[in-house]
């Protein structure tokens, strides 16, 4: 590119640097705070931005729980991370499977009330979890699904957005491909498994990342549905560590926050490979 106005380039770089700083700074503070002791955090005003030497102890305490110096009890984070992981995986995989099958039905089959069904799915977009939380809680409770993975995931598992995404993608698959598969004797599910699924790899990867993070970050619904500490997701764990009256172990809070951030970040990084591969692989 011919640089006609170096001022603009410098300006754009400055803006970008500023953006990076604004986003990265809180994360940096969190990391640093997790390497110090609570005393160091609360007593130094402002908090020192130099990493401390208390990292191992803090993370061990955060992950496995135990007694703190001031006598407080820390619940271990690793069971909560496990709950979060299972929930997020169940939600993302479940959403993908259900919405792919729905989109498949809507695009490739003609059945009575097809248009009505499509619009009904569309209308559910007006009903996020928060709006239907009361009745959903009652149903889950009546079915005895409180404090279980089923209760944590099933109410969240249908997705209109994902259905739309797949519908739009399936509409771009050429009709001739479907006809060739029919000629070859492929049944509809065979076609779905052998041809549609491999072609949808990029969409599936994209959706998996989004839904995994959505599932991992669920707070309001688990708060309502779980009363047993063993079923708390890690985002709830962080909140519970911050107690108003008792002494808050800030370094442990920060460490738990870092632990909670790692798996989604890992998922994004790993899935990026799939994204790029999918883009490069795109056929004519």
């Amino acid at each position, binding site marked *: 590119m011919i640089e006609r106005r170096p001022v603009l380039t410098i300006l754009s770089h400055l803006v970008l640097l500023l953006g990076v700083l604004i986003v990265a700074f809180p994360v940096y503070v969190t990391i640093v705070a997790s390497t110090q002791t609570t005393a160091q955090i609360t007593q130094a005003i402002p908090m020192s931005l130099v990493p401390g030497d208390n990292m191992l102890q803090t993370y061990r305490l955060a992950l496995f729980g135990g007694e703190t110096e001031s006598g407080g009890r820390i619940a271990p984070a690793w069971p909560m991370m496990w709950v979060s992981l299972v929930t997020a995986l169940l939600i993302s995989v479940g959403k993908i499977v259900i919405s792919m099958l729905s989109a498949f039905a809507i695009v490739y089959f003609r059945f009575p009330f097809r248009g009505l069904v499509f619009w009904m799915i569309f209308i559910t977009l007006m009903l996020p979890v928060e709006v239907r939380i009361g009745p959903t809680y009652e149903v889950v409770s009546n079915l005895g699904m409180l404090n279980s993975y089923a209760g944590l995931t099933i109410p969240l598992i249908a997705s209109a957005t994902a259905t739309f995404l797949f519908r739009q993608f399936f509409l771009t698959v*050429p009709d*001739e491909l479907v*006809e*060739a598969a029919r*000629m*070859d*004797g492929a049944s509809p599910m065979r076609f779905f498994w052998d041809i549609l699924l491999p072609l949808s790899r990029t969409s599936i990867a994209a959706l998996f990342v989004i839904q995994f993070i959505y599932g991992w970050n669920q707070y309001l619904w688990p708060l309502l549905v779980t009363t047993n500490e063993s079923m708390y997701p890690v985002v709830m764990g962080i909140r519970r560590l911050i107690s108003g009256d008792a002494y808050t172990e800030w370094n442990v809070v920060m460490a738990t926050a870092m632990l909670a951030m790692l798996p989604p970040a890992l998922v994004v990084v790993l899935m990026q490979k799939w994204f790029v591969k999918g883009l490069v692989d795109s*056929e004519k």
Partner: protein
Amino acid sequence: MAAISLKHIVKRYGTGKTAVQVIHDVSAEIGDGEFVVIVGPSGCGKSTLLRMVAGLEEITSGTISIGTRVVNDLEPAERDIAMVFQNYALYPHMTVFDNMAYGLKIARVPKDEIRARVEKAADILELRPYLERKPRALSGGQRQRVAMGRAIVRQPQVFLFHEPLSNLDAKLRAQTRLEIQKLHRELGITSLFVTHDQVEAMTLAQRMLVMNGGVMEQFGTPAEVYNTPASTFVASFIGSPPMNLLKHAPGAGLDTILGIRPEHLEVGNEGWPLIVEGIELLGAERLLYCRLQDEALIVRIQEEQQAPKVGETIYAKPRADRIHLFDALTGLRI
């Protein structure tokens, strides 16, 4: 290998008052091992007809038989046919080998037989070096050959070709045409080939089915269709440049259209007086765009013959044995 029988095929879209009928009572008998080309302009119903034979469209009324079976209610995969599509329709994420093997895999053909059939087809089509490639790594012509290979391995009774050459460039088209001819000579499988290109029709067909507006206008050998067209449509559709159709030709009666091909007008000292309005040199021959009274006419002369000048009047006599007469109202041959 099997004969195809089309009996009183009608195709209607929709029902009741808003129904649109696109195929009006087409009947044809195609012999075992015959190569039949269905040709016609866009929208004439040829693709619809092919798709009905394939099982991709419902048949409103009439029967289609392949061999001894009536196939109206059979799924495409049950009809023992194979189709080559205009856009090849190859599975993009599978290798060439897997593309060709897919149908056999579904039919639970044993692995070693799949391998044998695919390799044999690959040999016929010279695709051996490409078996492990994916479609995106192939050229258009190679992809078309893979599509044909996929059809061959099924060892069907009938081949259906849906405008397979339309997406190829001119040179490749000519080349692939020859390959298809060769294939038919070697395998001898009954084939139905749909195209809008009359050159493809003339060169590939053992018999041609000319369609227009959902109606079968003529079904005959290329020679028959060229030399004795059954209607003005067939006369003007086949042949390039098209046959001259004159409403007020000297010597023809009222309500009669006289047809004469450009190459059958002999330029000399006597005949019709034609005013030359344009000349095109095509290399080996010349096309003279003329006017006879109020009607336009094209005359084809050899390159060696004396070329007239624009504005000149020349005299051309139609060869008596090559005059075609059509009824002015129906367009049908008299």
